[in-house]
């Protein structure tokens, strides 16, 4: 038992799966093989050069985030930020209840050892393309509970994180700034 969580998550029925890197759509294209596959790959690569920027431009308009609040930051991020004072829905952000419809996973709160496999399952249930936003000090590095026996020191030990939003708890203005920055980066094609 040390500082990092093992890179293999053991589930209760005995099976285990490993944490591998994030798949993006372009990497998926590279992995198809066979002659017909290679021909299809070339056609797709050509199309991608044309359609890619259009897709990136379109993706930035309606980022749908997760309704998964864990701890203190959950009262600010998926609750007060949808209220009338800090209206984040004007940026196109919605918060559906099912994991299949999320674009972003907002990890807002402390991730504990009991919760780590479940949050990994939620991450895998999301469809491509997906981004992870670590909200609050607890999700970035463990926060004020960094030396506790049951706390994962930052959610980037279990899944790759694209954006870190600091604060304890996060102010809604910081979160809206993060959403605007996110939209700009997605439109330009960066991850």
């Amino acid at each position: 038992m040390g500082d990092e969580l093992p890179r293999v998550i053991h589930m209760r029925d005995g099976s285990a799966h490993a944490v591998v890197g994030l798949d993006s759509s372009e990497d998926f294209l590279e992995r198809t093989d066979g002659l017909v596959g290679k021909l299809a790959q070339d056609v797709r690569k050509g199309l991608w050069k044309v359609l890619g920027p259009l897709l990136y431009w379109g993706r930035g308009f309606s980022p749908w985030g997760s309704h998964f609040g864990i701890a203190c930051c959950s009262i600010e991020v998926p609750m007060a930020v949808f209220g009338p004072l800090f209206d984040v829905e004007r940026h196109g952000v919605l918060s559906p209840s099912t994991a299949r419809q999320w674009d972003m996973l907002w990890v807002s709160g402390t991730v504990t050892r009991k919760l780590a496999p479940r949050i990994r399952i939620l991450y895998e249930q999301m469809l491509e393309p997906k981004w992870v936003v670590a909200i609050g000090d607890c999700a970035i590095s463990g926060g004020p509970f960094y030396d506790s026996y049951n706390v994962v020191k930052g959610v980037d030990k279990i899944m790759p994180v694209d954006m870190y939003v600091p604060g304890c708890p996060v102010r809604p203005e910081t979160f809206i700034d993060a959403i605007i920055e996110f939209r700009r980066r997605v439109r330009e094609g960066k991850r």
Partner: protein
Amino acid sequence: MEMWVNFGPQHPFTHGLWRLKVKVEGETVVDVEPTIGYLHRGVEKLAEKRSWVKFIPYNDRLCYVASMGWTEGYVGAVERLMGVEPPERALYLRTITSELQRIASHFVWLGAYSIDLGNFTALLFAVREREFILDSLSRLTGHRMTYNYPRFGGVARDAPNGWVERTIRYLNRIERKMNDFVNLMLDNETFLKRVQGVGILKKSVAKEWGVTGPVARGSGLKVDVRYNDPYLLYEEIGFEPVVEKDCDCFARYMVRIREIYESITIARELLMRLPEGDVMAKRVPRVPPPGEIYYRVEVPRGEAGYYIVSDGKDVPYRVKIRSPAYVHIQATKAMMPGCNVADLPAILGSLDVCLGDTDR
């Protein structure tokens, strides 16, 4: 045919991270089995590592919706161990902020409960009214949610100029708008049918399961720490708890609505009588002497207790935190069998659990 259905850790109706396995036979619930511990951060062990003063902000993060009451519990317990009495103005400020926090917490509950039962407008109303209370508290303490305001011997800082008048104006506005709010829900027959007669918790059953707070007061028990075991200024202002007799979800709903009105009245009266003076006691010892104490406060969810053991050193020896929602989650075993699956959001919402203090 019986089947176990899982309300997993991620679910919009459970308002927190706990798991409820429900055994159903057709549409009727036969048995429940709750599982908690997804947010266990080990706060009681961390208390034995941080010093007395450094542990104060951790109490805010316990129940994050109602943080002022929990910090008051810890600070009040250690003050009794030390034998320190805060000055008059500090006592007034602590009572006023506790009542303001109670109003804000009940608004969070009201918004979440309404959206569970299908009323999205009420959530927006509740969040809007809560923003006024948060504005007033952030002018006083510097933050919207986890305030870190009470200190051993008083409070951290004094109120700025004009804070008292502005807060009284906000409270008047909230009282006017509450009438709109109440009519939105009570004139709605769908809401009343979903909530009346559901989730019955009889008085004797409630006593066995150790419930406190609005859940107990909705079952006809006249129990409130501010009335039975007064602390701060509640004995001076002559406090009477709000009790309803019907034992169902609607009774608990009405208890909380009437508590909002009552807290507005108490806070306004204390604000008008706020005396001048210091906000911090003159001599505060650095560490409390050896001893033990059990101190309880009334947080919006029920009765919170702190059992603190000190051995005279820099760090606490043992801090045990008693949480009301921990006990109410057990009470689902008594309330849920016999109801329909569609009634589960109404019952879970009326219990008002906050997972931060349950799992600590």
